């Protein structure tokens, strides 16, 4: 591969799923228009949705899903030991994701409800960084392929890799959307990291915060404005808990 006159190695990449729907990995196999170029950047060593290779030498590990079983911890640690760069890939990996809903109820109840009391080994859902060190995070439920492309190109070309720091409202306003608060609804856009082009609010659905907290978010002020508008705090707590992404701010309510 030649870039600006430099010969470059393709990056050896492995993609691994843990507890999740595999929707984020599927995103990588989507968007046919750029798929050949995208794959040309990569030497796929292990990626079951794209290739039948099962090699275990890779530089970059994309880790999808949350950790909910003891054997997953061991597998994840082994991946961390091999990978030079480990990327938490998608909302489940970054924050625990929808799987964390079960953390809010007693484990026995969850097992009874989901597995009809079969003996299963399960534990509260953890994000990847609860178990191993994470080098980059690509949030989103699912991830945005454009963003993944930019980040992988950044890694391949050794240029800067970053996520937007600001909240979804910036992109939402740029789409000339009517603010859902003006329609009397709740939305987590003001506290959620942008980068999805405000897809949900553009479709008139509330942002549920799948991309996690914006940097330096102002949670007390956000609670205040929800109260001032007499919107339901219960609904707000439900939304905040949906992807488990705002757990560190749960105590910011004034």
């Amino acid at each position: 591969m030649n870039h600006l006159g430099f010969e470059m190695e393709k990056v050896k990449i492995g993609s691994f799923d843990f507890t999740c729907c595999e929707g984020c990995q599927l995103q990588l196999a989507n968007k046919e228009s750029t798929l050949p170029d995208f794959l040309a950047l990569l030497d796929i060593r292990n990626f079951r949705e794209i290739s039948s290779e099962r090699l275990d030498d890779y530089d970059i590990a994309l880790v999808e899903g949350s950790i909910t079983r003891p054997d997953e911890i061991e597998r994840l640690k082994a991946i961390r030991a091999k990978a030079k760069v480990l990327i938490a890939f998608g909302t489940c990996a970054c924050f625990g994701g929808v799987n964390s809903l079960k953390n809010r109820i007693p484990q026995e109840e969850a097992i009874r409800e989901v597995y009809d009391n079969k003996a299963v080994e399960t534990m509260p859902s953890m994000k990847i960084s609860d178990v191993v060190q994470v080098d980059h995070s690509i949030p989103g439920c699912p991830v945005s392929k454009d963003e993944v492309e930019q980040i992988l190109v950044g890694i391949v070309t050794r240029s800067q890799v970053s996520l937007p720091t600001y909240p979804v409202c910036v992109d939402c306003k740029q789409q000339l959307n009517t603010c859902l608060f003006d329609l009397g609804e709740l939305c987590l856009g003001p506290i959620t990291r942008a980068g999805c082009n405000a897809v949900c609010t553009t479709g008139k659905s509330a942002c549920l915060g799948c991309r996690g907290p914006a940097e330096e978010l102002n949670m007390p002020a956000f609670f205040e404005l929800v109260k001032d508008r007499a919107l339901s705090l219960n609904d707000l707590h439900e939304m905040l808990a949906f992807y488990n992404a705002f757990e560190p701010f749960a105590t910011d309510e004034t």
Partner: protein
Amino acid sequence: MIYKVISKGEFKAFIDALVQNNSSFGPRKVDTGSNGKPIYQFMPVKSVDEIDFDYTVTHSSAKHFFLPYRDELSHFNFSDGNWEQEIRYEAPPIILIGLRPCDINAVNILDDVMLHGAYPSPYYLARRKNNFIIGMDHMPLPDCFCHSMNRHTVNHGFNLFCSDIGDSYYLSINSSKAFNFLKEFKIEEPTYEDNCLLIERRKNIKNSFATKIEVSGLPCFLDIEFDSPIWQKWGDKCLSCGSCAMVCPTCYCYSVEECFDIDLKGSTRQNHLYSCNLVDFAQVTGGHNFRPKTGDRLKYRYYHHYRGFAANDNQQICVGCNRCGRACLADINPKDVINDLRLERESCMICVSPSPDKT
């Protein structure tokens, strides 16, 4: 300037002919708010019936027609260890219908910043040259304060401006293009009575401003109040969400991003409208952030709007549309912030130093 009068029916026929044949944008109702009030935006229009001439105000301004929220500045092609830069100033002609006086004043301010400085923007110029602006007056909303900013009337920056005088519009024609278009339609010389109606309309508008902000001497006041606790008080409410700057007709800040094409054979340089309220606005290489505090960022937004920066001749760039106030979920608006700031100092009773004797 040429003055004419056109009946509302004939005006509609004129607008219809324009929008049928050109890429046009005008005020349209996009939603109804939970308060029952309609929400308008400047949207594409293909026939006169799609335009809400009696609209109040659009939620976002018209600035993105000249400063798109995202814009490709250049594309680079790499080949054989070399590269070429490709720049296009593409601006298809557009017609903008229904801009308010404050909106047109805002475009004039953007002209000062984008075209009259040391480095005129060719991107802006291409768009600004290729548009046709039709302004329309209106009765102010309760929270409009363009009168306080002296931006409630406008005498340049448009092709055609329409004042509503009942059954007709009183037209101020400011370009030969507009005059030539209008020649095809039935327009009349203003009569004595039309002139009276226009004066009456203007007086009526001027006397209808319910929101007033005292901006005289404000630049000096702001300099003195640089360390006021007021900034932190309002900063504590601010979500750093940038909505205010996105809807503002005169906020023009942008960030520049470079991205490689996925095939690594080229790259693009894009700009992206930004806001000084966003957390990393003043963050520089190496990671230092000159304005890590929300209150400081909010303060600078007010400084730019009401004190002015040297880059735009220290002029106040706020036109008083209160779009920022309407968009702000935290209820931060120029009237309350400025009144708070003035009140804090003007009602201060701590030292009660006497004014110097009259001489």
